[in-house]
């Protein structure tokens, strides 16, 4: 296992455990009140989802062009995490939206493109699972398209008129909110990194197991 795994996991877990206290002490937002506190985890998860999608896309590109198994392991770990964290984003967002906008869902550019990106990585996992042998390479092509979506999802909210807040909200956060927000972002990025490492380790062990089975058959 990577020598950074334990320190990253410890720090990530500690930050993740401490985050709710910081969030509770953060100031209330003027118009939305308590429900705005979902923002700290929701936006941080959004960034974590982008990280996971990039990891998957870059791993896929490396796998397609260098055929290294380690790249493929990164790709599948990234895709699974994109689906999990994407699910968090897609559930916490509507929970907040119900109070803030009055509706659970809106087909605006940000929400639609996020859902589409999430579905692409779901398709990646389905292809790997049910596509038969050789589907790792095919899935890698899918992940590349998924990664190409990330800038689109990020900028969608600035280019189109959407209900979703623009990216300019972040630089203009009130001072009391900035601390908890960036703390949560770092916490989630570290948590994502740690889980990615764990997941790639699982994939590596699986491949070693396959090799052992082959050796057992030969002897």
């Amino acid at each position, binding site marked *: 296992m990577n020598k950074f795994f334990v320190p990253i996991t410890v720090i990530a877990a500690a930050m993740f455990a401490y985050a709710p206290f910081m969030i509770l002490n953060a100031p209330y937002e003027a118009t939305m009140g308590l429900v705005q506190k979902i923002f700290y*985890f929701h936006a941080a998860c959004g960034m974590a989802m982008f990280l996971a999608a990039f990891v998957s896309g870059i791993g896929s590109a490396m796998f397609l062009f260098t055929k290294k198994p380690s790249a493929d392991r990164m790709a599948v770990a990234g895709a699974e995490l994109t689906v*999990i964290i994407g699910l*968090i984003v897609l*559930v916490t967002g509507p*929970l907040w939206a*119900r109070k803030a906008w009055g509706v659970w869902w809106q087909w605006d550019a940000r929400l639609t493109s996020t859902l589409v990106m999430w579905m692409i990585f779901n398709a990646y996992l389905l292809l790997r699972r049910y596509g038969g042998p050789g589907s790792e390479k095919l899935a890698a092509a899918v992940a590349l398209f998924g990664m190409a979506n990330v800038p689109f999802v990020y900028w969608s909210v600035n280019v189109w008129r959407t209900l979703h807040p623009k990216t300019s909200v972040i630089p203009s956060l009130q001072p009391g909110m900035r601390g908890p927000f960036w703390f949560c972002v770092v916490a989630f990025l570290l948590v994502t990194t740690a889980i990615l490492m764990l997941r790639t380790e*699982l994939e590596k*062990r699986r491949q070693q*197991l396959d090799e*052992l089975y082959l050796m057992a058959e030969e002897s």
Partner: protein
Amino acid sequence: MKRIQALIIALLLVAGPAFAAQEQPKRPVQQDEFVPVSGPTNPQETIPAQTLVGIAYGFIWVLLFGYVWSVRTRLGRVEREMESVSRRIAPGK
């Protein structure tokens, strides 16, 4: 005579609108289908914020811990299988 006529006409003029105003008593419409109550029209008032925040954070914790737990379980299973397969190979060699 003329004053009495004027008085009767004045009374009629006042009475007319008074009657007209009374003319529509509210008759209850017979319900033959379920009509939902039009409750608080502002949807933002129906679910308390604490519930939403609680569900959100609860969901995050459950999902993340659930996923980490599942990865670790699978890892343990694979490692145990690896041990058993290597034991099969080792004496055979």
